[in-house]
């Protein structure tokens, strides 16, 4: 029998979307078969939508979750089960490298610290044989510590790993996880709670050090700043301030704004510091006593720092002036 299919009329999409039918099928399958069995099969690359040969199982599953939030919970719980099995050495697969690669990236994409954090941390803390040999296992050229780090960074339930990320930023890789400054940076961004400006400013400083020799460093650094803003969109970031406080490399000043252009320091006959505001608080002029001009190199960075800090606050200007007076008193004593 010849099977006839009506042809598409020009301009209309008549085909059933392959992905949509696969997505709907997975929702049915996890209702019938234990979700961890299904998940393992998909993460091993089996029964995926045959749309290309470069999207891995975790990619398709994360797409499915976007459309069908109801499958998120059973799939997350299934991922927890597989992670637990792995930490006990009980995870069996004919293609374990592919499975783990996808399982860790799937966990990273899920971002469910309430469920995934402890099983992931357990794998790391137990230092089990399985975790120890992750750096020896590869999938398509990538050591499995890379997806494992990503899973940890995106699912942090507390600040347990903060020091580990900061070490990576300082180019001190972890004995199991390895890790480079960018991994540390991702880890810091993934820390729970409101952002710690000092830590993020310091992390950006280390990233600037790391990018020093990159021919693309300016674009890359701007990208890092975008990452920070995207991660904490509610926070009022002042990168000029951070660049001074955290002593970023000189070339980053061009990118975030030169503090010298924002805070102008002048010297005049007045005996007390004066403060002039331009364009709201975006630009600030500070007039200092002429007698201090010979100490300019020493005092200007501190004045600028205090002024930048003040720029970010809603405090009245007398607050700034009192801080400056305090600074000069210290100078006179010296």
């Amino acid at each position: 029998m010849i099977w006839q299919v009506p042809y598409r009329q020009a301009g209309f999409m008549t085909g059933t979307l392959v992905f949509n039918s696969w997505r709907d099928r997975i929702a049915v399958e996890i209702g019938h078969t234990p979700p961890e069995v299904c998940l393992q099969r998909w993460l091993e690359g089996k029964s995926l939508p045959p749309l290309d040969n470069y999207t891995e199982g975790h990619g398709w599953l994360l797409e499915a979750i976007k459309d069908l939030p109801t499958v998120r919970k059973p799939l997350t719980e299934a991922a927890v089960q597989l992670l637990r099995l792995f930490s006990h050495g009980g995870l069996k697969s004919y293609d374990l490298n592919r499975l783990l690669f996808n399982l860790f990236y799937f966990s990273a994409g899920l971002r469910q610290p309430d469920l995934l954090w402890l099983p992931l941390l357990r794998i790391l803390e137990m230092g089990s044989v399985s975790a120890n040999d992750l750096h020896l296992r590869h999938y398509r050229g990538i050591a499995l510590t890379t997806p494992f780090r990503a899973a940890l960074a995106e699912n942090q339930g507390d600040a347990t790993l903060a020091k580990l990320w900061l070490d990576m930023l300082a180019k001190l890789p972890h004995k199991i996880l390895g890790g480079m400054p960018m991994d540390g940076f991702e880890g810091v961004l993934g820390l729970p709670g409101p952002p710690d400006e000092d830590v993020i400013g310091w992390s950006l400083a280390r990233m600037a050090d790391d990018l020093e020799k990159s021919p693309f460093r300016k674009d890359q650094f701007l990208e890092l700043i975008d990452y920070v803003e995207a991660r904490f969109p509610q926070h009022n970031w002042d990168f000029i301030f951070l660049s001074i406080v955290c002593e970023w490399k000189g070339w980053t000043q061009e990118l975030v704004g030169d503090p010298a252009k924002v805070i102008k320091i002048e010297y005049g006959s007045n005996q007390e510091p004066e403060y002039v505001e331009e364009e709201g608080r975006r630009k600030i002029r500070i007039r200092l006593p002429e007698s201090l001009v010979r100490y300019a190199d020493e005092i200007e960075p501190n004045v600028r720092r205090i002024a930048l800090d003040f720029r970010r606050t809603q405090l009245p200007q007398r607050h700034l002036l009192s801080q400056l007076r305090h600074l000069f008193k210290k100078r006179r004593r010296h």
Partner: protein
Amino acid sequence: MRLIELIRNFLKNTLGRRTWAMRIFNRIRNRQHPLFAPLRILAASTDQHSRAFACNLMHDPRITYKQEQDLIGFEWKDDSQQKRNLLQCLNQCKNDAEIRDYLVQYCRHRNQLTADPYFRDTSNDHNKALELRERLLNVFMVNGLSTMFVWARDVAHQDLSQRTLEFRDAIQMFSTYRGGANPQSARGKKFVDRRMQSSSSRMQFIAAMVAVYEVYRTENPYHPIWLTTLHDFESYRQLTAEDKASRWTHLVGVSTERKTGQWVVLFTFDVSCFSDGLYRPTILESGTGYHFPAPEGTPVEGGMAVDLQMEADMPAAEYIAKWPSLKLAYFDLQSGCAKIEGTVLESSLQAARQHHLSKLNQNFRNIPTAARWLRRVEKTQV
């Protein structure tokens, strides 16, 4: 009368339901053939991809007996270094999806994840394109390299003293990559998007990508290069419509489902770049229903891609080859790069295959061998 009816019913219920022979790789095979049972399950599937895959396996006329034997006897080692046998795996399969997965395993191991693909075996010389003199074109999915970007990010901090200066510079481009190995991720798309938006950054990015891919594809091969002729593509190159990237990929039988926001670059090559040989692809190289075998006896050297928008008068030619150096490729920064945008406008696989079959009929029905082959394929659910 009743007896005749009884006999008729008996014959219908017993003999009529059984298939005694079927074509496997265009050769008539009986029930004893090891692929007979799995193929029958695939062909009877409710899934259009399984049926399309079965149809291709049944009718692809360019699989030699030697390659058939290679498929049947295929063994591979799993992670625990245990040998696995394809036939044993196929026999344990419970459904069509599992069968397809195992057959795709063969395609992956033999032709995709290897630096020495099987299609370059001398037994496949009959699929070699010898007469081709035209320039060739590859539709390159930039976001498809997300796994390479992750690899590059790791390598950027390893000892690079043995690498070329060009590679050392290029790899820095990826040291801040943050999209993971998922080409669908918003972060990955943003990373590529940012670099492909303006002409100057696009040039820099493609140059870096090419330099890194030179190394990655040799150390971690994952598929051969698929090509079409520039001639078949020429009228679609200058499209200004927003959906030109979709049109390009559909023309060569690549679905753009869930690829919105991904970038495509057209790489053009001189035919001399493929001194190792250009081959007509078979189902054992593609491993997907988006491939359709060229009819038996057709006087063309390459395969013919299924146009997923069903608009091309003649299907675009398709060839596979070992990757040449991408440094030999030409690309146009303006008209040769585009982002896949908007809604997918592609036909269902069944409709596209039916349409492809009718195009083949129009073009080759005058050739007796091809006409016979086409008639046979028409009887299968394509």
